């Protein structure tokens, strides 16, 4: 995947390499997990075992916290899912974005420019 035009890049820490583009879905409560559809980007403060089905449906995972051996980090490596940890205020910053790019290779998540969305 070539890097499309992006705006508002937010740095994070790579748990598992890879790139994905999708609709961001912010998780505030466990009941929000059903909103994550196939290919969406799951965005949350942290993850736990209840997130597993939604993490499988998501094309990438972004969390605000989490260390090297956090649940999200280990799960991402086990399942080869592009995942960024420690993205400050990811929920607040990406809540209203239409589409985001998770570039775990280069350790950032960014909103895609509208012009770019038309080409996708």
């Amino acid at each position, binding site marked *: 995947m070539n890097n499309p035009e992006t705006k508002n890049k937010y740095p994070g820490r790579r748990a598992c390499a890879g790139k994905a583009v999708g609709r961001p879905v912010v998780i505030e409560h466990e009941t929000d997990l059903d909103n994550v559809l*196939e290919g969406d980007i799951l965005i949350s403060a942290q993850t736990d075992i209840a997130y597993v*089905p939604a993490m499988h449906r998501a094309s990438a995972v972004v969390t605000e916290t989490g260390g090297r051996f956090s649940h999200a980090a280990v799960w991402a490596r086990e399942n080869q899912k592009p995942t960024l940890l420690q993205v400050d205020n990811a929920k607040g910053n990406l809540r209203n974005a239409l589409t985001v790019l998770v570039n775990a290779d280069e350790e950032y998540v960014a909103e895609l420019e509208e012009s770019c969305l038309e080409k996708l």
Partner: protein
Amino acid sequence: MNQMSRLTSPIGWLGELLPHTAEALGIVDRIEGEIMRSESIFGRERLLQTVLDFGTEAYYSHTDYYRHVIRDTIWPHGIWVAGTHADFLRGFEFSALGFVWTGFEALEFFSGSSQWEIFEIYEDALVAESLRGQFGKSSPDGLDRRIELLEDQFLQEHGTEDELFDLCTPVAPIRTAETCLINDFQDFRRVFPQPPSIDEIMDVSEQHHPTAWQFLRRHVRWNLVATEHLYSSMPPQSLVEKGSGDQRLESDSHGLALSRLQPTTLALVDKIMSLNVLNLVLEPAFSFKGCVGLPIGMVFRMAHHVERRPPLDQIKLLVGKMNLFNLAEYKSRHE
């Protein structure tokens, strides 16, 4: 406990290289064994019904609610004094056992068979959570802090971040709770192709009993509504297990890498791995987010309005007594 019902497979010869990790796996098995024993005493049908009676909203809001209790309560700190790594593991097991007993005490209360008043159960819940907190995230000498310190030590003295990941991420035969969920749900669906009712769970054959109950215990806090939801929410493509050949290859490759380490590096890896087992295997299934955490969380919800809240000093005193590692004394409070 029979071999089929283990959350973690025995690690075989790796146990000789990683004694602390083997001990952590033993703790996971002993905690699950205690829960199984308590399930049997409490009565399994009654257990399923009691948990269903808590309601679906309480189930799905449990983790958030419990986190809110942890963050918004003033807890006694500094009771646990840092000791050796082995001491830490022993203390962790002690606190986890106390959490199990308190969870079942709460279940007795909610099923209407307890003579105790809510403020008495509440006091025990505060003590159990305080003790658990000595070893958890909020403690300056807890699990997370210890993992961070050991990781830093590895990176400063022993290897790169990639090597740290490769050596200390649990691999077969150790399975994180998240991976275990996939395997256990696969097995459960083979026994119950459709979401089961309480009667169907109770009628399950002796052969399939461990499969059914280990899934209910580890992954859905014994809740059949949550079980039904998993049937529709888990993508079918995610339910692909690694074959035993893949697991053996993974295990052999990891074992080979470990056997080539210097003794000091191996000892450090063992400590990190043992804490990762507690954090990634035991915590999700059997701590506050898991089955025994649910009834304790229900106590906190109910006691929110109780006026007879025990003072912090009293809780600290009670936790201090528990910290003498007198399991018999602690257990006697719950019998």
